[in-house]
């Protein structure tokens, strides 16, 4: 059962990722990314991390993708030019991607991490649920948590400054 779920979700994630880079229309790319994100959250559930899975759906598939859809609708699709600054880039890039995949896999699988071939230890029932993550975030990782909130505020201010109309007038 677990294998079936894993391979279904893995196929969904991979298909979504390939859809993002293959679709001509950016709007369809965004839709493919939503498929990818839902499959990834299923994978997170398989790894018994309920909070990350929920945050993935709510934050990514909910908020961030809506932002993308708005910007795609505002800017419009628009085709890409066929002009290539580096000749044959479209054929070299997949080769480089395959090389990167092989290299990453070899690097991880040939490492001496003995637990790689296992499912990991048995975890208690509350592993990865919101309460456990909340305790970690507000006790052990309080400073990174606060720093990330400041970063979010700065990003919001930066986006308003970047996208505002005022600068064009001056």
């Amino acid at each position, binding site marked *: 059962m677990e294998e079936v779920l894993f391979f279904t979700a893995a196929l969904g994630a991979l298909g979504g990722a390939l859809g993002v*880079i293959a679709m001509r229309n950016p709007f369809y790319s965004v839709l493919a990314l939503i498929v990818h994100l839902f499959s990834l959250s299923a994978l997170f559930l398989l790894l018994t991390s309920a909070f990350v899975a929920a945050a993935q759906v709510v934050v990514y598939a909910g*908020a961030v993708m809506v932002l993308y859809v708005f910007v795609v609708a505002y800017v419009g699709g628009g085709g*890409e030019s066929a002009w290539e600054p580096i000749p044959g880039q479209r054929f070299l890039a997949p080769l480089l991607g395959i090389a990167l995949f092989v290299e990453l896999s070899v690097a991880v699988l040939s490492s001496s991490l003995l637990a*790689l071939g296992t499912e990991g230890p048995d975890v208690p029932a509350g592993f*990865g649920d919101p309460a456990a993550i909340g305790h970690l975030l507000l006790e052990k990782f309080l400073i*990174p948590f606060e720093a*990330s909130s400041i970063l979010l505020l700065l990003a919001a201010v*930066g986006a308003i400054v970047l996208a505002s109309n005022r600068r064009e007038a001056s």
Partner: protein
Amino acid sequence: MNTEWFIVLSALLFATGAMGVLIRRSPMVILLCLELMLNAGNLALVAFSRMVGNGQGQVFAVIVMVIAACEVVVGLGLIVAIFRRRLPLNVDDLRELRG
């Protein structure tokens, strides 16, 4: 499922995202491919967290999500600014900053 399956899948998704950054020209799709790469990293973090049996890796994944949200907000702000100035939305045409 063993951890290595998740790690290999994460490597595959990361390579797909990197390939997309190299192939596509539209800055919007390149941002989407950056999301793919960040999510592949997240999957590896959560898989390792499960392998060790410790929830701290999941906190890392949550922080990575925050960083991704910031990156999206700034990137989309830039795209809107580029569009408002009637510049072409194509990374090959926007290379004045290249040395």
